[in-house]
């Protein structure tokens, strides 16, 4: 797990000012983020169902983006807690694509290895591995591999449920694979070379 000595959200002093940060995040976000339009009203933070688990409310993260607090933002657990419920998006008076910004922050945190808990990032990566391998998601493989690594104890408690899913035919132990794997691979390989630059 990556270590960073700076923990800006523990001090009242801003120690980093990366003023291009906001623009960078905006650029790397799908669609037109409208991030620069945020008026700090807090309708996002107010809307968030799992807010109680978050280091920062989304609004606060956006303020920190403006303040250029790169590490603090990318270390925040907020994007990883986001459940993609889009309540904030439809309520935002400025049409900020909040959920998509959260995705962007995750990908940046992964690229820069800034996240502080590996559970979520690695779950995503496992999921993606499956998809890149088979072209379809593979719940059984995903669950087992994930729990083995991150919650071996939970695996036990979950097994009853998992068993239920298996016996009721709601989970298969063999992955489905699409015909066009080579094509998909070609597409994804190409895609990985590309970056949103404008």
């Amino acid at each position, binding site marked *: 797990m990556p270590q960073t000595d700076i923990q800006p959200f523990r001090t009242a002093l801003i120690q980093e000012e990366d003023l291009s940060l906001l623009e960078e995040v905006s650029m790397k976000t799908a669609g037109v983020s409208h991030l620069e339009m945020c008026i700090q*009203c*807090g309708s*996002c933070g107010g809307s968030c169902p799992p807010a109680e688990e978050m280091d920062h409310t989304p609004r606060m993260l956006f303020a920190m983006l403006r303040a250029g607090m790169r590490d603090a933002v990318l270390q925040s657990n907020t994007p990883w807690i986001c459940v993609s419920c889009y309540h904030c998006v439809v*309520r935002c008076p400025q049409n900020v694509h909040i959920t998509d910004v959260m995705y962007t922050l995750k990908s940046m945190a992964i690229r820069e290895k800034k996240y502080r808990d590996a559970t979520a990032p690695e779950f995503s990566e496992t999921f993606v591995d499956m998809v890149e391998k088979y072209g379809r998601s593979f719940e059984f493989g995903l669950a087992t591999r994930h729990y083995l690594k991150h919650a071996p104890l939970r695996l036990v408690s979950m097994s009853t449920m998992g068993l239920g899913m298996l016996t009721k035919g709601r989970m298969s132990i063999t992955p489905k694979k699409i015909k066009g794997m080579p094509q998909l691979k070609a597409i994804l390989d190409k895609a990985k070379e590309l970056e949103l630059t404008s």
Partner: protein
Amino acid sequence: MSAESGSKKPRVGVYVCHCGTNISHTVDVEQVREWAEKTLGAEGVVIARDYKFMCSSLGQELIEKDIKELGLERVVVAACSPHLHELTFRGASKRAGLNPYLTELASIREQVSWVHTDKAVATEKAKAVVAGAVERVIKNEPLEEIRVPIHPDTLVVGGGIAGIQAALEIANAGFKVYLVEREPSIGGHMAQFDKTFPTLDCAACILTPRMFEAGTHPNIELLTWSEVTHVAGYVGNFTVTVKKKPRYVNTDLCTGCGICVEKCPKKVVDDVYEAGLGYRKVVYTPFAQAVPKYPVIDAPNCTYFQKGTCKACEKFCPTNAIDFTQKEEYVTIQVGNIILATGYDLFDARRVSNYGYGRLANVFTSIEFERMSNAAGPTGGNIVLRDGKTQPKTVGIIHCVGSRDKNYNNYCSSICCMQSLKFAHLVKERTGATVYEFYIDMRTPMKAYDEFYQRVLEEGTLFVRGKVAQVTNAARNEREEGKLIIQVEDTLAGKQRRIPVDMVILSIGMEPRHDAKETSHLFGVGCSSDGWFIEKHPKLDPVSTMTEGVMIAGCATGPKDIPASVAQGAAAAARVLNKIMQKEVVLEPIKASIDQEKCSGCRICNGLCPFNAILFHEDRMVSEINPALCQGCGTCVAACPAGAISGTGFSNEQILAQIDGLLMDVNLAV
């Protein structure tokens, strides 16, 4: 460009304005000047000058001097839009003895320097625009401005506080006013309010005297329960048709005793005056101090009109004033000026579904609360929950509902902060409840407004800076059971909060009237994409419109508080009085006329004029245009297959020449 060959070309002067640096920073003004003198010399340009501010008195004198000394016969000023300074420079020419209509403005600011960046390209375009103006002005003809007398009467549309104010100002100056209001009584939104911020004086106490004055003023003719259906004519001479909806009450006989209302057996929800919070009879006066005092029968809900029986009101009326046979009637009035004070609609709070209005009983709108807190309202001034009895112990007031939100209305409704503070005060005063105010930004800019904010702070209202995310009845724990929970981020604490309350008040914003677009067409005034009427100039001419003789006042142009609306009403009145005192208006002499020799009487133009200015002489089999009715649109000019119709100011010759000028560079290249 051989049209002029033979006959000698008139002497043209070209004046290029720097407009400080507004033009010169993107257009090489000197180059344009030099080019005009050289290249356009062949077209008749004898002098070209450039100057820092052509519109300044010195700039104008420059032109006057040249007209006199160089005997200029045409003038082109390359500067800003003709809508700003056409009159200025026509004036200059006139003073120097040149017919004002032989002067043209070439807009190289709005159409060139302000909208382009590349200086070289902009300069070339500027030249083209100037060339166009020069070729055009050569074809201009001297015209005489048309003067028409102004009818001294005025129409005021909308009987809210702005309209009442305007009407009184004009009436007190001794001129007749028709005050049209579509509701049964004048008074408008203000009549619904209890207290007014920041002074907290009672709305009724300050409004009703004005209403009464308007209702009894010898110079004011009230046309309530009426709507304007048609407007014809132009400044000074409007012909307006007003539809008077049937009251089913003979106002000559009615004494306003109110027995009919008392006896009427049927109650319906009052969506207008009581904002849906209370009931009224089917025959009703909206409120006690209504002006005029005569009641109205709400036919669609009236048992007699539905079932053919009842007539309770008729039976009990001591003066036999009830008249079920009344039909709507149309009256035509002549006025010289019109003031539109048509006001606003309130935002429909049900659209913000996350605030639960319409689904959660104890979520109220600001207007509902106004009625509730009003001693004359449905609860007699008691602040209670939807059950009609329980007093709230905690109240949440939410700002900016439907305002400052791209999902609804982008703009700030400007009164909500103050009205919310007022509510906080009233709730505290009447119930002692705990009050929360949820705001994004506290906006208290006018006189004594921030002081009021201070006062409410003192009173212990709890302010939370954050746009409320949702109001829900889905409790998460006992503390929240049976309450409305306001979920919000306290942006100052940086934490999400769930605050259980008994009552929620939504401070809903203002919207343009739902029929603002129709109204704007009816009166020919501009209407923004939002629906607010457009001022002639947002700063310097806020009560005039692009249509001469039609003024605007109050919330019809955008959200305003009472002082601002009153001020605008008075300002619009001043504008009208100024016109009336001038006794006559000057009209642009842009008119079409038909060459009787060339007209073949084919009658193709006859169907084209919406102002019925074209008449056909059966005897001579030719059409003719009535200059008084012609508005100068030029549609018939463009339509005449025989080329028999010509239009002053925008003649074919002028426009074709302008095209040649605009394309001069293109053709020089060939």
